[in-house]
């Protein structure tokens, strides 16, 4: 018995050695394979290359831009009584207290910052909102979907408690418990409960550099661009449509679903929804519980005179909203650094206006041309936003089940890729970022097939497309060699 068991032990020990050796080999093989995988180079270091005025503006326009950018960087409190937060109108509900707190990376007007990556290294500013200016005991809960190294987020509920469609933004914080909001008792929404119901979707701030150029591309040019390469698009299952306003039928173009017609509307909506500031574009106070309304509406308005005196400059006379829109409108697009051989090979694979490469460019259009502009040098110029400004069906994988204008539950605007080289978080909800592969996760998230659909079925019962319009292009990306994939990633990080 003893002998036998010794033999068994020896055998077991041998097997253990073999097992360890196999494990080690497997690890090495996997390690080598991993080392050979393409990887996201991460946010491009060096100068921001964004955040300044459009280079051809004249001196007056540049001065105006500088003044409006200062307003963009203003911080709000409830009634403007806290120094350093001299803007007024915060709340009753809000997501942050200033445009530039969220539109931060790689410079003001940009997108979500990160504490250790990128040009602007700061903690997620939204976490501070639960504590800032609160009386003892007035602190609020940081919702579980906000992390210090995660993206800035707004939350929307898909449905109302009665099951009807909601889709609206629900402010993460309220002014209840702030020192400048005595008597306000408005509670935070029950995000934990809504998350448990699967009723919450997120959006992250879109970078706004150069958006004045996009605003200035005529509708006809967008229509023509969308119609270009029709046969190839059809072959690859790419459709797309321009979102349009129900008011005059013209193209809307800003926001994750291209739901906003103009930068003024975009800025007005954001001021109202993200900071709770009623304004001349969105004059209603949100969540207007009487005991939490401390200012007359609209809280932000044109300042023609003050005590009978002229207010001064155009920026001073304009509302904050007009200033925000102007700062965005007059800003330069991000400066690309596409120059290395790898960048250029990647660019060819991505596709250009002349050759489609693997087809990314079929939606992420390389070039659009602006119409006439009142601002010096901004008219009739070729721009490279890498977007067709159209909305496309992305399938169930990205669907957020929110309808905005003509954009349905899984339709999203082709995100402009200029400046993507310095972006930290990707996709409408920031699901792709440094913690999970960054750009690579973002690319593969474009692919989605609903397994419950049959082959000929176009749409699932929930209104989402059975297949993402990007599926075949992502298949082509996957079929590239590792080096080619890396070239393409390098190109994207050069934008």
């Amino acid at each position, binding site marked *: 018995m003893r002998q036998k068991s010794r033999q068994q032990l020896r055998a077991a020990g041998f097997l253990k050695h073999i097992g360890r050796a196999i494990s080690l080999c497997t690890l090495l093989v996997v390690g080598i394979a991993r080392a050979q995988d393409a990887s996201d180079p991460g946010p491009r270091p060096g100068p921001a290359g964004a955040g300044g005025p459009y280079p051809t503006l004249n001196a007056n326009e540049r001065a105006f831009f500088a003044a409006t950018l200062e307003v963009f960087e203003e911080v709000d409190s409830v009634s403007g009584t*806290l*120094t350093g937060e001299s803007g007024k109108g915060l709340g009753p509900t809000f997501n942050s207290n200033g445009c530039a707190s969220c539109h931060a990376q790689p410079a003001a007007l940009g997108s979500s910052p990160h504490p250790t990556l990128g040009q602007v290294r700061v903690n997620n500013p939204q976490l501070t909102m639960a504590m800032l200016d609160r009386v003892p005991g007035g602190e609020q809960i940081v919702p579980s979907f906000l992390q210090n190294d995660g993206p800035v987020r707004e939350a929307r509920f898909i449905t109302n408690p009665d099951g009807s469609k909601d889709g609206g933004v629900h402010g993460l914080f309220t002014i209840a418990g702030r020192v400048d909001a005595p008597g306000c008792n408005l509670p935070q929404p029950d995000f934990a409960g809504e998350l448990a119901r699967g009723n919450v979707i997120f959006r992250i701030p879109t970078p706004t550099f150069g958006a004045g150029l996009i605003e200035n591309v005529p509708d006809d040019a967008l229509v023509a661009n969308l119609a270009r390469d029709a046969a190839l698009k059809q072959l690859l299952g790419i459709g797309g449509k321009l979102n349009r306003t129900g008011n005059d039928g013209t193209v809307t173009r800003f926001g994750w679903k291209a739901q906003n017609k103009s930068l003024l509307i975009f800025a007005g909506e954001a001021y109202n929804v993200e900071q709770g500031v009623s304004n001349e574009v969105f004059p209603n106070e949100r969540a207007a519980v009487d005991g939490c*309304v401390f200012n*007359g509406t609209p809280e932000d308005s044109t300042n023609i005179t003050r005590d009978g005196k002229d207010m001064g400059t155009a920026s001073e006379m304009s509302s904050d909203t007009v200033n925000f829109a102007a700062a965005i409108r007059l800003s330069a697009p991000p400066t690309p650094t596409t120059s290395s051989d790898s960048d250029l090979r990647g660019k060819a694979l991505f596709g250009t206006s002349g050759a489609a490469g693997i087809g990314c460019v079929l939606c992420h259009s390389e070039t659009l041309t602006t119409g006439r502009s009142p601002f010096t040098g901004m008219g009739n110029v070729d721009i490279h936003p890498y977007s067709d400004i159209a909305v496309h069906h992305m399938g169930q994988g990205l669907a957020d089940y929110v309808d905005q204008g003509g954009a349905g539950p899984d339709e999203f605007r082709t995100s402009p890729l200029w400046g993507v080289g310095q972006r930290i978080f990707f996709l409408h909800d920031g699901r792709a970022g440094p913690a999970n592969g960054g750009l690579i996760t973002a690319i593969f998230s474009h692919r989605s097939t609903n397994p419950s659909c049959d082959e000929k079925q176009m749409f699932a019962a929930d209104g989402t497309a059975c297949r993402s319009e990007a599926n075949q292009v992502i298949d082509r990306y996957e079929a590239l060699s590792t080096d080619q994939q890396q070239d393409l990633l390098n190109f994207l990080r050069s934008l």
Partner: protein
Amino acid sequence: MSFPRLQRLFALTFLVSGSALGAPDLCAAKPEIAKRIASASSAQMPDSASFDQIVAPFRSLRDQFPMDLFVHVRYQDSVKDHGIEGHIQGVVDEYLKLRDDHPGDSFYVYLYGRALEGRSTPQAIVLMQEVLRLDSSFAPAHQTLAEIYQSASFRDRRRAAVERARFQVACPGGLIPRRPSPTPPRSTLLAQAERLLEKGQVEHDIPGLVYKGLQQDEWRLQRIRPFDWYTGEYKRSAVREMQSEHWRGWRILVRYYWKTEQEDKANALLSEMQERLLRLSREKDADLFWVGAVALLDLYAKRNRPDRIRDTLAQLERSAAAKPNRKQAAQLSRLKAKFLPRGRSPLAANR
């Protein structure tokens, strides 16, 4: 007596008696109502009473006597005296609806106009004139117009005298209240917190006093900001006072945290104050920048931080040089004398 003459006499008698019957209802509350209003007004409320608790007795009275002018007026006053913008706008909306539900009824036009008094006063004047067109015997409209014309912001002595006289003809002995009613005094809690801190009585909830004091003063500001009784300049100066009060509060808190050895909290608040001062330096508000800088100087001196004192004085020196101003130059000299060794310029020290 001819028939038409008799007819006129009857008509006149009817008008006089009608006016004599109706007038007292609009000049003073019936004794029963007056008693109920007095009782609601004297109800003891705890310091922590919410707006809804304070207004509830007046709202209840208004709901019990919906046709009594005086309960409506008292209800409106309670909201204006205790509510914030949202509540006050809520009352305006409420009386707008009542007016719209009773077209051409002078009673509701008056109440809507009165809800706007002190808030959109020019519109309140228009509505009072409309009331008098609808019913020239509606004495409270003269009273409201007199209140408005004798107020500081809408002063018109001649019109005030005319409306006062008309009101007193209709309601002999009737008074014209002074508008706006006085604003509540500034909170004394910050001063109390400072005294406790000076005496080293840190076992008291000094942060609690500070925050409560700041909230009381923020609340006081709501007695001013929603009303056009006050000029824009006055409102801005009230906001300025509040901004200074926050600096005072933060200064007390930092000192309290030091005394109670809560260094982390003190450092966090101090760096927040420094950040706020930095932002202020970019704004055009030099006066407030000085308030903040002086608060920080005081704290640096208490912690013996000559480097920080020199930096802050240098900032003030630059601010004074940018916009030369005799008052600030004098203040800078005083601050230098207080915080710097004799004869040293903070800018020179930084070179």
